[in-house]
């Protein structure tokens, strides 16, 4: 069995989980395995959605004390499910939770782990993963020697494809309630927008923004495009009050949106490493020699303080945010 650790948000299957399930379905078909979806939590209403992405079996590990995330309790529940079902491949989205729980589960299972993968295949009955290393400056192929193989799939890379599965429900015993650590509180940033790593469109600002207040014009463009705002390390480190959570690059978020709009970003190697996986790149920069133009699908040599407001105006007129 290929088992996929799935997450729900507000009772709905998260997109990275749907993507991991779809990839799991493809691998299961290619290797004659079945596909299981695993949900851990206090309430798993919504888990049935996994059947829409090809799950043959939907496993739930449910208990009131699993209402909050605990890395040790969740990792143990996941590892137990792998053992109980005799799964040989364990997948999950490379989300905050997936990246936290799955390596721990892998260690418990004595299994090899590949994080944030962008390609998967089955070779001689075992998983093989292609993944960016050095933040995408190179791509490595990882082969496994362990009997159980664990990987997390990078959000926005694999396509979530609807495909009906049997979706037979099965409940698993839950782990005991003595945790080493548990989440007590979630402090939302309040924007309610998607995280950079999951965003479909990113509008990003660099040193050319000149100060933190000027990021307001990027926020306006982002609102007009349905995008999320990011920043280069230069902007974050300049002391403009730009949160490091917005940083894109080798020492920030590594992102792969459909569209990345770089405003006033010259294209330092460490920044390019973090965003070169974007499908389309737009560069807006005064300096025609800026390295970012070498990557750009569309380049605009010009003053971002003139071009960005024009873009916002035109995007609003076209009603793009709603599309």
């Amino acid at each position, binding site marked *: 069995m290929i088992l996929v650790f799935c997450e729900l948000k507000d009772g709905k299957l998260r997109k990275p989980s749907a993507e991991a399930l779809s990839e799991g379905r493809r691998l299961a078909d290619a290797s004659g395995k079945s596909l299981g979806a695993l949900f851990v939590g206090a309430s798993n209403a919504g888990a049935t959605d996994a059947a829409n992405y090809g799950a043959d079996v939907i496993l739930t590990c449910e208990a009131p004390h699993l209402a909050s995330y605990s890395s040790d309790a969740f990792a143990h529940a996941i590892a137990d499910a792998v053992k109980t079902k005799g799964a040989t491949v364990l997948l999950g989205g490379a989300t905050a939770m997936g990246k936290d729980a799955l390596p721990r589960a892998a260690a418990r299972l004595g299994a090899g782990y590949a994080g944030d993968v962008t390609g998967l295949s089955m070779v001689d009955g075992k998983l093989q993963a292609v993944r960016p290393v050095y933040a*995408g400056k190179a791509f490595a192929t990882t082969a496994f020697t362990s009997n159980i193989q664990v990987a997390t799939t990078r959000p926005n890379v694999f396509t979530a494809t609807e495909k009906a599965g049997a979706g037979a429900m099965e409940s698993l015993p839950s782990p005991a309630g003595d945790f080493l650590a548990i989440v007590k509180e979630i402090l939302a940033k309040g924007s309610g927008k998607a995280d950079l790593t999951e965003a479909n469109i990113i509008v990003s600002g660099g040193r050319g923004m000149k100060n933190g207040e000027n990021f307001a014009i990027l926020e306006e463009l982002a609102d007009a495009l349905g995008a999320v705002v990011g920043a280069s390390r230069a902007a974050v480190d300049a002391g403009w009050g730009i949160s490091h959570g917005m940083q894109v690059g080798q020492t920030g978020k590594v992102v792969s949106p459909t569209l990345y709009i770089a405003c006033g970003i010259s294209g330092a190697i460490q920044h390019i490493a973090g965003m070169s996986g974007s499908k389309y790149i737009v560069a807006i920069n005064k300096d025609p020699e800026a390295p970012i133009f070498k990557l750009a699908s569309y380049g605009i040599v010009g003053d971002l303080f003139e071009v960005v407001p024009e873009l916002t105006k035109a995007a609003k007129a076209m009603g793009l945010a709603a599309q």
Partner: protein
Amino acid sequence: MKILVALKQVPDTETRIKVAADGKSIDPADVKWITSPYDEYALEEAIRLKESKAAEVTVVSLGGDSVKDVLRNALALGADNAVLLKSDASDPLAIATALAAWAKDKNFDLIMAGNKGIGGDNASVGPMVAELLGIAQANVVVKLEIGDGTFRAEREIEGGTEVIEGKLPAVITAQKGLNEPRYASLKGIMGAKKKTIEEIDGAAPSGSTSIVGMVMPPARPEGRKLDGDPAQQAAALLSALTDEAKIF
């Protein structure tokens, strides 16, 4: 209180990576090696705890002799002891197993590291060590408070942070924002030269994964410049994104 900080030596983020002739590793020529940036936040936090709570800070790294630079630098910044586990392990589980086996009987209250070593980018050694030692973990931490046998950590998640409370000992992996790392003082640098780095042989557990190939990213298709005044450029871009790229 005893704190262990695990450090990794990695290529500088401004380094251009080239694939070596073996087709499965990077060409070490012209690579400048540094301490992984996230590890610097972990070390800084440990040194601050040493200053506020009289902790003893030990730094450890896996690798060959070149890794001593990273350890020496940590000693200059304020670490008390440095240990080199001589190993050519590169698989995350093998590294975690070697670290956990060595740390097991040393009674560390806190084991810290960067949330990922830039390079392998698996971000997995921290949680693996926590599991192998059977202790708590909090990863991608931007705020840390240590209590009496307990910790409270804020870690980055999608769209915000979450507060984790747990028991010590624990593995805590650092994220940018946790603190602002200091520079080494001249006194620290001179003092570090006199300290010994303990070397331990034979830490080479077998791995569960191996890298069988490495390639450069595919070349991006040729782009084009959009001319005109700002309004024309904006209109040309939106029509290209709509008609060619089909994004909208």
